[in-house]
């Protein structure tokens, strides 16, 4: 048993922390919330230069062949910095799907571009029924000569408005078992028939509505096996969930540190408020929840990295992390008092992300039911 990070991972963590503290100040985070595109190409290219986009891409596709666990370490720092932009959607939702599902040819073509930060990707799974399961997919694709024609509406497609390609999940065969007959399509965002509308959301995280009307996609843009898309997606959704947990743990840790600094400084009744047990116990609870979240997230990440069955561990990580981050931001707000309730303050950046993160890829209720099923109840 070894529960520590490797030397390289520690180094990645430090480098990422230093870089993001410098290049991604909260002023930028705020600007990007207002900005329609939600990222700056300058920062995007600097991240690419640091090798972040190529981190999990194998060497033969122009990457550096790091592990999923390495990515988890990096995402923790991104969550800490509230990094805006399309890293998650491109590398996790796009890159990992292509890695898992793509044909050799597709990998040769797309992965080097991801590695170099040349394309932006995203995944279009959810629809207006707001479900993460296979039966929620109503968008359909019908074959027409050497093309497919896609029709449907996708909702909560992160960064679709700036993406070059969206990986669209569509039904190609109507079956009794919803997990069968789904296909992944690599859809060029410039295709005719796509209408993208940016949605205003709590965390300003650039979610979009994507309406596809007779969108024609060439056969060669089918990612992996036709009709077998769900099996791949299920695995990648596990990875994405753990990746999101890592980001959230980073955000929660930053929330706690920020709160502790304040509790040590802020004087009321002639002493720092951090010396009052009421405040100390809030902080103790925050720290305990967050440590628990970090440990279960790392365990899930390790299992996913090793290719071990991890449904329960992933579910546990998402529940604990969602709970810990949310409680940390609520208690943090309580400790900051009125000053935290202002746009100028950083607390709301985390408070918003905690809630968005808790919901994305399935909330506590969703994963509790999943655990119950896994337990044979």
């Amino acid at each position, binding site marked *: *048993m*070894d*529960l*520590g*990070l*490797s030397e390289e*991972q520690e180094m990645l963590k430090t480098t990422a922390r230093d870089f993001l503290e410098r290049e991604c100040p909260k002023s930028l985070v705020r600007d990007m919330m207002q900005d329609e595109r939600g990222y700056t190409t300058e920062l995007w290219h600097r991240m690419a230069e640091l090798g972040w986009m190529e981190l999990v891409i194998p060497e033969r596709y122009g990457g550096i062949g790091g592990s999923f*666990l390495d990515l988890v370490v990096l995402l923790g720092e991104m969550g800490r910095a509230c990094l805006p932009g399309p890293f998650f959607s491109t590398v996790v939702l796009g890159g990992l799907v292509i890695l898992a599902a793509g044909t050799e040819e597709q990998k040769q073509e797309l992965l080097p571009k991801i590695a170099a930060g040349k394309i932006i990707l995203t995944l279009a799974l959810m629809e207006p029924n707001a479900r993460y399961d296979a039966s929620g997919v109503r968008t359909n694709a019908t074959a027409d000569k050497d093309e497919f024609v896609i029709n449907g509406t996708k909702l909560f497609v992160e960064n679709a408005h700036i993406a070059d390609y969206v990986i669209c999940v569509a039904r190609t065969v109507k079956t009794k078992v919803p997990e069968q007959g789904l296909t992944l399509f690599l859809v060029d965002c410039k295709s005719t028939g796509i209408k993208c509308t940016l949605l205003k959301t709590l965390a300003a995280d650039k979610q979009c509505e994507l309406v596809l009307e007779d969108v024609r996609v060439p056969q060669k843009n089918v990612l992996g096996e036709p009709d077998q898309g769900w099996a791949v997606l299920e695995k990648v959704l596990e990875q994405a969930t753990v990746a999101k947990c890592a980001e959230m743990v980073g955000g929660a840790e930053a929330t*706690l540190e920020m709160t*502790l600094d304040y*509790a*040590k400084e802020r004087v009321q009744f002639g*002493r*720092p408020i*951090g*010396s009052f*047990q009421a*405040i*100390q*116990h809030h*902080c*103790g*609870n925050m*720290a*305990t929840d967050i*440590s*628990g979240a970090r*440990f*279960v997230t*790392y*365990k899930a990440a*390790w*299992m996913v990295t090793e290719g071990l069955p991890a449904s*329960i*561990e992933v*579910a*546990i990580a998402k*529940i*604990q992390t969602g709970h810990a981050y949310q409680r940390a931001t609520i208690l943090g707000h309580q400790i900051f008092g009125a000053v935290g309730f202002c746009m100028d303050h950083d607390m709301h950046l985390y408070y918003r992300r905690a809630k968005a993160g808790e919901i994305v890829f399935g909330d506590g209720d969703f*994963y*509790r*039911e999943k*655990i*119950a099923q896994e*337990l*044979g*109840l």
Partner: protein
Amino acid sequence: MRFQFTEQEEAFQKEVEDFLKKELPPGWVEESLQWPGGYGSHEVDEVHWRVNQELQRKIAERGWASISWPREYGGAEYSPIEHAIFDERVSYYRVPPPGFGATVAGPTILLFGSDEMKQEWLPKIARAEVEFWFAYSEPNAGSDLASLQTQAVEKEDEFVINGQKTWGSGAHLIDYAWVAVRTDPDAPRHRGISLLIVDMNSPGITVRPLTNICGIHSFNEVFFDDVRVPKKNLIGEKNQGWYYLVAALDFERLMVGIGAFKRVFEMFLDYFKRTKRDGMALKRSYEVRRMMAEMAVEVEVAYMFYWQTAWMLSKGLRPDTEASMLKLWVTELSRHFADAAMRVLGPYGLLETGSKWSPLNGLVPRGYLDSVSATIGAGTSEIQRNIIAVRGLGLPRK
């Protein structure tokens, strides 16, 4: 990073498991009413006490009572991870862990005792021939232990003890007391405390039973009236007791009976899977599904705190904060679990052992009572939060 045992660790886990399966009487696990995290049900009845004594001797024969001590003193020199594996399996089989002699008194003597004291006590402790009860708390010294008042005055080659101790677990059954006494009433309070070993057969000791909330005689009030103790029974140096006592916390960090949480979780899972009420399988009930999913999360988080603490010990790091988080988490879980079981079972949850209608042999009402002690004993939840906040997070005391 590797969340997996080495081959050696796995083999050891199996060895412990095989031993327990062989030595435990049939029905032991199912009949046990000990609630995870609770302090009230350890000494259940004479039969269990005797089985456990016998078992502890066999554990000691294998060197597992003194599992991490040096071989020189009868130990087995196992790593903290292996030690943690041992405690996990033992508690999973719902056996009380080796007593405080092996887990706290022995290691304290090992670190701070004189050579003479080591020779006298360590082999006996390793063989589980002697046991100690912990005489720390007093009526007016609970969470604020350093305010303890029981006095020991030097007279020639003896100490003479006067005072009252309380919550002495097993003081009515155990041969020796491990007593914290005030030896310098004028010194600042942390610097006037010493530790003494007291033979319970000494004249002047009165043991009065306290019946705990579960209806079990596990605690005692103990009165010391001019009790004479030879000076050679002083641990280390005079007036250094507080530091030994704090250092000894290191030895009991993992003693949370972690495996019992998993085992009880599995017992409930099995119960819900096979039980119908009013024609409906309980496993279909939303409340049951939710409860078990919540408990699955909390038990897993508890395990992660446990292994993190063990791993840090194995790396020579000090898991002060992690150990407090572990204690806080598992004991709060002890309560949550009992509350959730009560909520889900409704009136059936009220049924004590002895009725054919009692779910899990009446474990639930026992747990509901016993879990009250979990968040109090060995440092209340509030004390743990203080430790995390002040020592771990660096918040100011004043």
